[in-house]
């Protein structure tokens, strides 16, 4: 019985991490088709925001909000200074954001040094028989789910989401209807960045905060969103579930290396069979 709970927990936790690190990219790449290779560094920035906010004495959850807000604003800045000149130039975007990624790692290392302290979320643990699980990890699963639902709701049911979706699909039409597409591109990029910032803040109590931490996540996030296919949010959910389950089970049953390699191999086979991604067969967008 306890074994089953632990398996379930490992799988859910892995899925939660996949959802967290991919959600922002699902908005930025999945919806806007902007290949942001600095995505990992946005995560890193979120973790640093969270760290400094808690060091200033802020409550952890307020710090997470701060991180979302801070990285969101940073994203808007990046969009204004960089991304907006590159819409439609996929390769150039890839290269410029990779430059941004190098720049951010270099800058943060210069200013704060190679490593930073961790964040203490001040939560306890729950026990199942011989096993105990950090409460924080359970909270992380819940937060991942809540963020996904929130994003979905905003996209589906708010005016912002409706307008943004129509802008992404047909900016000319949207402009003809009196919407300023540039504003919505900027806000959507900021929204995706904010989600990424929250992800970074949520990771801060788990991992060692260091300037290079982003590189660990960026490939995974891209593989997840690309495998998800043209409906970015539902696609990300499906892909995260598939990869998370694979990673969680293989990592727990064997080793983490095999878990990671397993995920990448499954992604390759998946793209061979479904070149457009998991949601590629249905034209409906979420």
């Amino acid at each position, binding site marked *: 019985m306890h074994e089953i709970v632990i398996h379930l927990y*490992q799988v859910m936790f892995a899925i939660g991490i996949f959802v967290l690190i991919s959600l922002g990219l699902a908005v930025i790449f999945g919806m806007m088709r902007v290949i942001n290779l600095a995505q990992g560094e946005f995560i890193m920035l979120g973790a640093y925001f969270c760290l400094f906010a808690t060091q200033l004495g802020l409550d952890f959850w307020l710090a997470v909000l701060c991180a979302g807000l801070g990285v969101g604003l940073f994203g808007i800045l990046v969009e204004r200074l960089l991304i907006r000149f590159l819409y439609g130039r996929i390769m150039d975007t890839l290269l410029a954001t990779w430059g941004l990624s190098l720049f951010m790692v270099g800058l943060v290392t210069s200013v704060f040094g190679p490593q930073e*302290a*961790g964040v203490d979320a001040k939560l306890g643990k729950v026990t199942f028989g011989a096993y105990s699980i950090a409460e924080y*990890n359970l909270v992380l699963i819940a937060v991942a789910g809540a963020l996904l639902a929130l994003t979905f709701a905003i996209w589906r049911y708010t005016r912002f989401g409706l307008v943004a979706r129509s802008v992404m699909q047909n900016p000319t039409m949207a402009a003809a209807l009196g919407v300023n597409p540039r504003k919505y591109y900027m806000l959507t990029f900021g929204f995706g960045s904010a989600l990424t910032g929250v992800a970074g803040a949520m990771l801060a109590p*788990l991992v*060692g905060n260091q300037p290079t931490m982003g590189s660990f996540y960026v490939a995974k996030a891209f593989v997840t969103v690309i495998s998800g296919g043209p409906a970015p949010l539902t696609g990300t959910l499906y892909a995260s579930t598939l990869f998370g389950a694979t990673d969680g089970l293989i990592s727990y049953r064997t080793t*983490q290396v095999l878990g990671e390699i397993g995920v990448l191999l499954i992604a390759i086979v998946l793209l061979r069979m479904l070149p457009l991604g998991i949601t590629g067969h249905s034209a409906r967008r979420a």
Partner: protein
Amino acid sequence: MRLNRRQFFRSASGALAFASSAGLLRSAGIAGEAPIVVANILDQTGGLNIYSLKQIKAVAMAVEEINAAGGLLGRPLELVFYDSQSNNQFNAQYMTQALIRDKASVVHAGVTSSSREVMRPIAHKFRGLLFYNSMYEGGVCDRRHVCVAQVPGQQIAPLVPHVVKEYGKRCYILGADYIYPHTTAKWVRKFTQEAGGEDIGVEFFPLDVSNFAPALSRIQAAKPDVVWSILVGSAHNAFYRQYEATIGKANIPLASCMFGIGREQTYLSADEASGIVNATPFHDSLPTEAAQKFVRDFKAYTGEDDYVGDYAEYGYRGVNIWANAVRKAGDPSPEAVIEALPGVQFEAPGGLVTVDGQTNHATMDIHLVRTNRNQGWDHLETFAQRPPSDTQAVCDLNANPNDRTQYTLEL
């Protein structure tokens, strides 16, 4: 470009020459003499620099102390520093530059075995001398290579019996996935068995892994008496945090032969870091006058007030052992120094260090310690003058002076 100390510390990166100030050299009476070049290749930047940052400064301090005391053989030392950027390609390039262009008498370089193995053949190609001031898996048998830090046989042998006695017989070992932790894990297993215990699980993690949730559940399923961490690097630092949040050292204690060398405890909270046992040739709270003087001097020299640690001390002892060998030889050339090295001694901050001529490794004191809640160590016990017995078992430079092999230690 030549820099003074402040500029050097602020910006050291790439190839920089650091010279003691003209005033210092004048007061030592050696300002006019031709300098002896000491090269230092370490990672100022990149993922591995947490092991190098203090050592870079300690090497500079040792050089400056020697200059202030009148230099070596009446000549000043000049330090040339290269930032290898945690990239072995630069180790190869800078090692060549140090030997060819700078004509360095000695190169103090490397904190990883992989970088050392890249540089060792170059030392032979250009007839140089390489000081590797870092702990590693042991077994290098090479007269152009000197290691002044501990190898597993020196460190693990006294540590394991203490752990078995204090915490219990069943251990679970976690290590970083490269050769040093693999070798060390075997030593832990061997000594644990000799002490009547057993290992019930061994796992290795790539250096970029920071999610230990699966491993923590496996450990709980296995129910060991003690968990060994041979985890390394900043990503693995997350382990100590996650361990305290799930299992807790109060339930299953932690032992480690790596914790602290990257100054891990300074990035962790008191709960996360305290209570881990380790064995080390040096730590800041070592209750000897030599150790305390070193810590005071280092802090004064660098203007930094945080934990100093063993890697700083290795750099300091490396330079001084080399300097003693130069004095003994009366000649700074690599060939003369290599001849003079066997038996050279230095009263290091961590205790007396003697070069073992059979292996070009060192006999030293090993101190048993446990982390306290103030980012430092509580001193438990000292094991005096431990020889590099594991490497001695496979290497004899007296019999085979042309040997260059790194042997895999047979247990």
